[in-house]
């Protein structure tokens, strides 16, 4: 019997229904994998203790430390210890994981890293699965054709206690990127371009499905960069249907299915892509060939322009005026050539091996401009190890950049990696909100290529012009 054509999200959704939604109650949705970190979990564990509850499925839960920990090394060459309240968060996570039997990859473990970097690299992120984490960039895992989304701390408690969530089905939004990216234009530019087009609430209430030839030709790491920033378009999730690129990435990873289970899993995953006749609530086509390297000028990820563009006029819009004032920019002027103080290469958006290779390609044999502080923060211990095996750390150090220990670092300035008031940074992270990288700090979001070019020139630069 032929059923109604279904989207990728429909298929995952329906396979995880403990009970379907009704007019009165949301669906009870089963969660396959719950990722936990030190900042959004302590209050949830406290709730479990207060109610005398256990963690229902510790084997479906994995914890690490990434947000608040230092990325500096001390004089002994080891990572500086967390201090004060951050140390309390680290200790609380250790205690909670021990008491509730949750696997933890703490600082010092070879598997530690940014939660959205380690899930995929350990092979925990499976196509067709449901994945949640108390972090809005959980959408990253959608690159594997998983339904992955960020939740608040109350919901972290719900999943710990019941491995389930109350959810309404998201609406569907297909974005097809036709053509292919031009040289010097990266996955980061693709997603910044989309957010600039649809706005930061453009996909609210929807799960995005990224499709088309320009998506198919991306590596898994590049797909993760795209899906990562789905939340910056307001989306509840962002997915790419799995294909051979996905399976090649996953094969042989620690927690990927193996042997006969692998073949069965791939056969199952091959049924996941949206049916040809499936209808979406919303559809958009973008010509990827026309995309340029992008950079944000303002204080919202939707305030992006092509690198050779000019800062827009506010047109009387109070939010744009506020952004112009905060950023200290004049409308009608280009960003190219504007002096910068800091370059940050890292975050769950752009801290994987491919990102570091791109940055190293620009920095090899060059120097970070005088007066510019450049920070390269690998996404995980595995990324760090691989990068060092390739000599990328040497490229960065010889160029005058700092090579740090894995963590979220200057993306959100929870540790001491912060901008000073008034400083300008080109950052490969995901948010340029006021003060995001430190109170008074001013952020231009861009790709690793563009960030590395800015480090070399000490100013905003079109990487395609570096010979």
């Amino acid at each position: 019997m032929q059923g109604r054509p279904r989207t990728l999200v429909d298929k995952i959704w329906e396979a995880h229904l403990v009970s379907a939604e009704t007019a009165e109650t949301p669906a009870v949705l089963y969660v396959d994998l719950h990722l936990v970190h030190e900042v959004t979990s302590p209050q949830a564990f406290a709730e479990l203790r207060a109610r005398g509850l256990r963690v229902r499925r510790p084997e479906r839960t994995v914890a690490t430390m990434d947000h608040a920990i230092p990325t500096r090394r001390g004089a002994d060459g080891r990572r500086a210890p967390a201090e004060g309240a951050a140390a309390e968060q680290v200790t609380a996570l250790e205690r909670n994981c021990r008491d509730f039997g949750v696997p933890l990859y703490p600082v010092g473990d070879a598997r530690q890293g940014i939660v959205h970097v380690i899930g995929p690299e350990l092979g925990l992120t499976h196509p067709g699965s449901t994945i949640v984490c108390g972090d809005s960039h959980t959408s990253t895992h959608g690159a594997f054709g998983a339904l992955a989304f960020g939740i608040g701390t109350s919901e972290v408690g719900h999943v710990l206690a019941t491995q389930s969530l109350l959810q309404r089905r998201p609406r569907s939004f297909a974005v097809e990127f036709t053509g292919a990216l031009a040289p010097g234009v990266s996955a980061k530019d693709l997603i910044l371009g989309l957010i600039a087009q649809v706005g930061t609430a453009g996909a609210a209430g929807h799960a995005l499905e990224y499709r088309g030839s320009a998506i198919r030709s991306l590596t898994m790491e590049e797909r993760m960069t795209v899906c990562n920033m789905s939340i910056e378009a307001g989306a509840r999730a962002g997915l790419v249907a799995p294909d051979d690129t996905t399976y090649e990435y996953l094969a042989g990873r620690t927690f990927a299915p193996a042997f006969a289970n692998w073949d069965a899993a791939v056969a199952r995953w091959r049924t996941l892509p949206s049916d040809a006749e499936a209808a979406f609530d919303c559809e958009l086509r973008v010509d990827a060939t026309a995309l340029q390297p992008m950079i944000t000028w303002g204080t919202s990820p939707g305030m992006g322009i092509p690198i050779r563009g000019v800062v827009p006029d506010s047109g009387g819009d109070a939010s744009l005026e506020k952004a112009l004032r905060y950023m200290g920019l004049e409308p009608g002027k280009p960003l190219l050539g504007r002096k910068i103080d800091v370059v940050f290469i890292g975050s769950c958006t752009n801290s994987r091996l491919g990102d570091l290779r791109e940055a190293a390609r620009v920095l090899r044999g060059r120097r970070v401009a005088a007066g510019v502080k450049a920070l390269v923060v690998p996404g995980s211990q595995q990324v760090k190890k691989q990068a060092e095996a390739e000599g990328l750390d040497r490229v960065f150090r010889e160029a005058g950049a700092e090579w740090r220990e894995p963590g979220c670092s200057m993306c959100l300035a929870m540790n001491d990696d912060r901008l000073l008031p008034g400083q300008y940074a080109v950052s490969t992270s995901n948010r340029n909100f006021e003060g995001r990288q430190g109170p008074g700090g001013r952020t231009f979001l861009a790709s690793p290529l563009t960030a590395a070019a800015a480090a070399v020139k000490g100013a905003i630069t079109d990487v395609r012009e570096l010979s």
Partner: protein
Amino acid sequence: MKSVTQIRSHTVVLPMDNVDTDQIIPARFLVTTSRDGLGRGLFADWRFDAEGRPRPEFVLNRPEAEGASVLVAGRNFGCGSSREHAVWALQACGFEAVVSTAFADIFRANALKNGLLPVQVNEATHAALAAAPGAAVTIDVAEAVVALGVLRTAFPIEPFARYCLLNGQDELAFLLSRETEIAAFEAAAGHVPWRIR
């Protein structure tokens, strides 16, 4: 969660669009293991200068903001980070409802789980509220209506969330009551596809 049936308060108006949760509470205030004591971080970089002195021009620092429990905010309120601390900080400063033309999804979910009411209204009602800072409003949860004088506007609210608000029920208790169904789902779905070590 305590039940929420009706909110009566004067308003405070923060009309900017796209107020993200990093503005509502900057990340450095998240370095805590508690949900208490977050009020100091609410809009910290807008309320206080670098030396920690209140900025008198910021709307929440004005005398008329005193005691207001309804925040009238711009479009796409609560976008960005999933931090529930944003909701806890608003509640720590006495807010019981936020009115906007649109809320970010995760913020809305977090708010409802804590009894902070997200009230989504149309442009016309929003304009009327934004033009009358300090006006007395009544928000009725059962009727899902916000009233400003004679202007009465219905707002959408997910039926289960409304039930939970009115009855002071929390979602976790509901999920725990579905144990049989969850166990049946797990039995049918088979084993966990990995062994984490």
